[in-house]
């Protein structure tokens, strides 16, 4: 009944791992063809695969785990998806209803343990509820502000000897759940009037634009207005990074020009972004001269951190569509409404900031910096070799920030990382989820030697299913981001951020799984190795590039704690 409901929901892949409480479900999977089950090596990885699949496609990812330890292993993946508003359905086996509450073998209160990190959860009481619950779970996961949903399935409700009538509902109606589908027209009108008064506007767009499939309309509107635009870590790709209006990422490790523009702006149009503390720095000092228009599908995100002058609750696509139509109407009637001279001056000012302290995207052309390879150069090399067309997943640390800063994403859903929770171990399994969704696409995981070891067992899953993802390991022989903070704030005391020669030989390790490993230690070999990894010859192979990068590199710019957005460290010696 459960698997039939998943079929009817159009699910093609389930990422999972079996166990006692889930065995009826696994038997049902065995006896059908439509839903393919992918056997992972750790339940956390199953949830990240489902998550990567969802981020790349926009369709909900599905994971299946057993009760007890299977369920608890899935919690990190749920929290990761929850923080980034990713649609996902996780089905957990549970001990039979009569045993619940008895501390039975492998019993865990999954609904309880996952409650703070799910959008919603269900516990099946009776088999007959299964179709409706599955329908509701998918509806909730994908509508409004998306998020993960848990269905906890006691074993007795999937007993194959008990048969019930099956009917999969076409639609669901829930009197207590009706997410906004449009923006309030009066608010949109107010926002348009405010936009027209702006002299130094910035558009600040986040993951909600990507989730809301609003990248195209946002791009159209931004170009029409000629307003500079910055993206959050989650929003990269929602506006073409190679476009001249694009300022790069903002926030803690955002570009100098993006943070300066935000700080000096007089109007911020926030779309699908939530003024995260990694963006605003000290909210008290946030952009003192700016009026804020905030569009978000989640009313609770609006005015949570920064009060909005004009709040608009609604999905980005219809809101921006209405907004652009109204802007066109107003501006066509009176072209002088837009202060193009002021905007031109503003763009020049921003270009000046960029020229002063912008990121240097030409590191590859400058050749070797002494003996060490700069990690930024590796990302630039990856960008060039993949023509900017790859799906890039990442783990968490310095390498993640370098990837975000130096790979230019021109399309949405190509940049896949754990922004909100910052989950090390996310990169490889999420890349695998993407590869299942798009077998012909180039998928690369930018990782560090720390993060990759948090789900490295999935190399075996890649062998089993022949998944030719590429892994770019920026090996700085340290928990680099931790080390950077220790350098800056703890007098260089590297407490537990290095491994004392205990790292594995990654090349031999991946070879033992049947994959291709290439070690790079010289800058001169970098480009050749990168081309080799993405060559036609190795198209069908998982290639792991283990690249020794400068262990002393820091990520800059970096926001100065407790400051405003324009307070940044720009290098070891300079600050704004």
């Amino acid at each position, binding site marked *: 009944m459960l698997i039939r409901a998943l079929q009817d929901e159009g699910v093609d892949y389930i990422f999972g791992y079996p166990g006692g409480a889930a065995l009826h479900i696994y038997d049902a999977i065995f006896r059908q063809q439509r839903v393919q089950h992918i056997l992972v090596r750790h339940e956390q990885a199953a949830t990240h695969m489902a998550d990567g699949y969802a981020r790349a496609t926009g369709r909900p990812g599905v994971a299946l785990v057993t009760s007890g330890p299977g369920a608890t292993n899935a919690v990190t993946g749920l929290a990761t998806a929850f923080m980034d508003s990713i649609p996902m359905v996780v089905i957990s086996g549970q001990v039979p209803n009569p045993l619940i509450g008895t501390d039975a073998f492998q019993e865990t209160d999954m609904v*309880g343990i996952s*409650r*703070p990190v799910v959008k919603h959860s269900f*516990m099946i009481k009776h088999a007959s509820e299964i179709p409706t619950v599955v329908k509701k779970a998918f509806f909730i996961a994908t509508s409004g502000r998306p998020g993960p949903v848990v269905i906890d399935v006691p074993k007795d409700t999937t007993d194959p000897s008990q048969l019930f009538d099956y009917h999969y509902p076409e639609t669901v109606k829930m*009197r*207590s759940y009706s997410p906004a589908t449009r923006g309030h027209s009066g608010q949109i009108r107010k926002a348009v009037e405010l936009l027209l008064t702006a002299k130094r506007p910035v558009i600040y767009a986040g993951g909600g634009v990507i989730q809301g499939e609003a990248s195209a309309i946002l791009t159209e509107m931004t170009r029409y207005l000629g307003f500079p635009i910055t993206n959050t870590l989650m929003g990269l790709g929602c506006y073409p990074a190679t476009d001249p209006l694009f300022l790069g990422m903002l926030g803690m490790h955002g570009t100098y020009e993006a943070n300066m523009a935000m700080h000096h702006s007089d109007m911020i149009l926030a779309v699908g972004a939530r003024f995260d503390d990694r963006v605003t720095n000290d909210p008290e000092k946030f952009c003192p001269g700016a009026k804020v228009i905030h569009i978000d599908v*989640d*009313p609770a995100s609006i*005015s949570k951190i920064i009060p909005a002058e004009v709040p608009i609750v609604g999905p980005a696509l219809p809101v921006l569509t209405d907004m652009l139509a109204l802007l066109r109407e107003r501006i066509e009637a009176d072209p002088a409404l837009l202060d193009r001279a002021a905007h031109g001056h503003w763009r020049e000012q921003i270009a000046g900031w960029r020229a002063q302290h912008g990121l240097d995207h030409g590191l590859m052309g400058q050749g070797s910096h002494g003996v060490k390879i700069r990690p930024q150069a590796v990302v630039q090399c990856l960008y060039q070799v993949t023509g900017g067309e790859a799906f890039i997943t990442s783990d968490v640390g310095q390498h993640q920030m370098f990837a975000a800063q130096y790979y230019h994403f021109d399309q949405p859903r190509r940049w896949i990382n754990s922004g909100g929770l910052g989950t090390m171990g996310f990169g490889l399994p999420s890349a695998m989820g993407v590869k299942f969704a798009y077998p012909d696409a180039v998928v690369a995981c930018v990782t560090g030697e720390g993060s990759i070891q948090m789900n490295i067992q999935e190399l075996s899953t890649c062998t089993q299913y022949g998944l030719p993802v590429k892994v770019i390991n920026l090996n700085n022989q340290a928990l680099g981001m931790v080390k950077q903070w220790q350098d800056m704030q703890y007098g260089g005391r590297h407490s537990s951020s290095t491994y004392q020669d205990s790292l594995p030989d990654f090349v031999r390790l991946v070879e033992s799984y049947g994959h291709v490993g290439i070690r790079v230690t010289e800058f001169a070999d970098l480009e050749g190795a990168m081309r080799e990894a993405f060559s036609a010859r190795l198209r069908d192979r998982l290639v792991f590039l283990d690249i020794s990068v400068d262990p002393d590199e820091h990520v800059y710019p970096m926001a100065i704690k407790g400051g405003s957005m324009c307070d940044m460290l720009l290098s070891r010696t300079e600050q704004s």
Partner: protein
Amino acid sequence: MRRIIAVLLENEAGALSRVVGLFAQRNYNIETLTVAPTEDPTLSRLTLTTIGDDRKIEQITKHLNKLIEVIKVVDLTEGEHIERELMLVKVKAVGAQRAEVKRTADIFRAQVVDVTGSAYTVQVTGTSGKLDAFIHAIGELSILEVVRSGVSGLSRGEKVVSL
């Protein structure tokens, strides 16, 4: 400021734990909480009191509204409203105290609902402030046990919180 928030939610297993969990998770405090099914057994009505400034209360109501099982959230303190709380107090009552307790109860329109040779149990209803005042009047020394129901409330006039 003290606020009284009324919540209408699905009468389903787990719904209440989500409401309580939300408060714990987001560091909001709950002063009192009452909950029971309504005339429609599929619905529960919950009243809670909490303390917070406008910004905090706005966040609380928005997050409550986000819970899937929550149907309606109203801050009763935004308008005219009626609040009632019920309290049972067991009071030491020997000798002269017996008359004194009875007199105090009368002043508060409270009823003595159980009597033994050495104790009275008094039932008081009213606003939380009135209940506090009763405890104060009796004097903490002679109080043996107190149980309070928490606040229930609704809006004055024609306004209703319903489907």
